[in-house]
């Protein structure tokens, strides 16, 4: 019966997914255990920092600016009807620092740097470079994978902070400079309602957690990809999709814990 067949299919896929989560978790532990080289030979990590962090800068800054501008515009329209335009600074800053900065930066990072890492490692595996390294008695996890992991984890909070900072500037640009909201109240209200520990540090913590998740997913999909063209391309799509879902899911959990005290 087709119904039973599709139910079996769903069951099969669910079990498969749980297996993969298990593999990914083991992979994560393996990376941590093999991280010594990433720090002893720090230039390996620095090289990866360039490719993940520096190369993602443009898109992060541009996106941050646009998001900040839109927040400013939309926020002004809504606040105007309550006569609370002076709260625009607060609105823009809190939205960015608590949520949009960490989440959007993580999604952009997954699309740009994450998929690149997946493709790179997948291709290295497909062209037998990983096998060659193993045969030359160099552990590929330590030499290739772990430096990329640490580069991702270091980049992510920095990129999220830059996203938020540029976004606040974007909100300022549109709100104060173009629309004419009072500059003094824009900044003073913002400064009195954005708490360092509660808002900013929580945002940084979020982006740190997102960084770990996105990087592990990207590296795992690349390492696990079938060594064919379709295999690698499927892996890069899976990286972006899975990273996005996991980031949003983690955001729900972290926000509930941090901002509602659950």
């Amino acid at each position, binding site marked *: 019966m087709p119904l039973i067949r599709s139910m079996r299919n769903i069951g099969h896929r669910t079990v498969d997914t749980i297996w993969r989560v298990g593999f990914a978790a083991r992979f994560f532990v393996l990376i941590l255990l093999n991280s010594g080289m990433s720090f002893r030979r720090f*230039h390996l990590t*620095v*090289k990866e*920092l*360039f490719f993940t*962090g*520096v190369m993602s*800068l443009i898109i992060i800054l541009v996106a941050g600016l646009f998001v900040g501008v839109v927040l400013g515009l939309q926020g002004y329209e809504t606040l105007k009807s309550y006569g609370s335009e002076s709260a625009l600074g607060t609105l823009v*800053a809190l939205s960015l*620092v608590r949520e949009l900065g960490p989440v959007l930066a993580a999604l952009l990072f997954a699309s740009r740097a994450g998929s690149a890492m997946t493709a790179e490692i997948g291709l290295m595996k497909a062209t037998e470079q990983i096998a060659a390294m193993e045969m030359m008695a160099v552990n590929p996890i330590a030499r290739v994978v772990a430096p990329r992991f640490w580069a991702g984890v*270091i*980049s992510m*909070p*920095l*990129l999220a*902070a*830059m996203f*938020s*900072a*540029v976004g*606040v500037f974007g909100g300022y640009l549109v709100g104060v400079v173009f629309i004419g909201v009072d500059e003094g109240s824009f*900044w003073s209200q*913002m*400064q*009195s309602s*954005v*708490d*360092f*520990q*509660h*808002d*900013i540090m929580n945002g*940084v913590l979020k982006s740190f957690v997102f960084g770990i998740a996105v990087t592990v997913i990207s590296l795992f999909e690349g390492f696990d990809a079938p060594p064919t063209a379709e295999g690698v391309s499927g892996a890069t799509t899976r990286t972006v999709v899975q990273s996005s879902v996991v980031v949003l899911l983690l955001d729900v959990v972290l926000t509930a814990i941090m901002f509602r*005290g659950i």
Partner: protein
Amino acid sequence: MERTALDLWVGAFVLAGMAALAILAFKVGNLSSYNVSESYQLKANFTNIGGLKPTAGVRSAGVLIGRVTEIKLDADRYEAEVTMSIDKRYQFPKDTLISILTSGLLGEQYIGLKPGADDEMLKDKDVIKQSRSAMVLEDLIGQFVAGKAESAH
């Protein structure tokens, strides 16, 4: 060597990131006025806390000096018990008045402390005795209508 150009970019990237964090902390947030200092706990009871929520601010003379950490219902007296974390630098006398205030007309609610004249100060885990509960809109309207009805007589 090619490596030095790379190092330069990465270094610049990390510095920019830290700078962004610093900007957020000082210009966007309130780090300069908020010192991650030690705090002590005070409690107070209210007949009605209105819209007060945990993490609401505690202010004295309008200056932020602490936060509400916990709100419980005291099962014996059927009153709200509010626990606050106050910055250790600020001490208040035992007859301080604690009230629940609203920022603006319809804004969020916070706690205000008005110091009394007692020589003895409140210590960690002390209870503030004098409390004024929140203004509940329905009660105010009820009072207003009752007052109007009276004056109409």
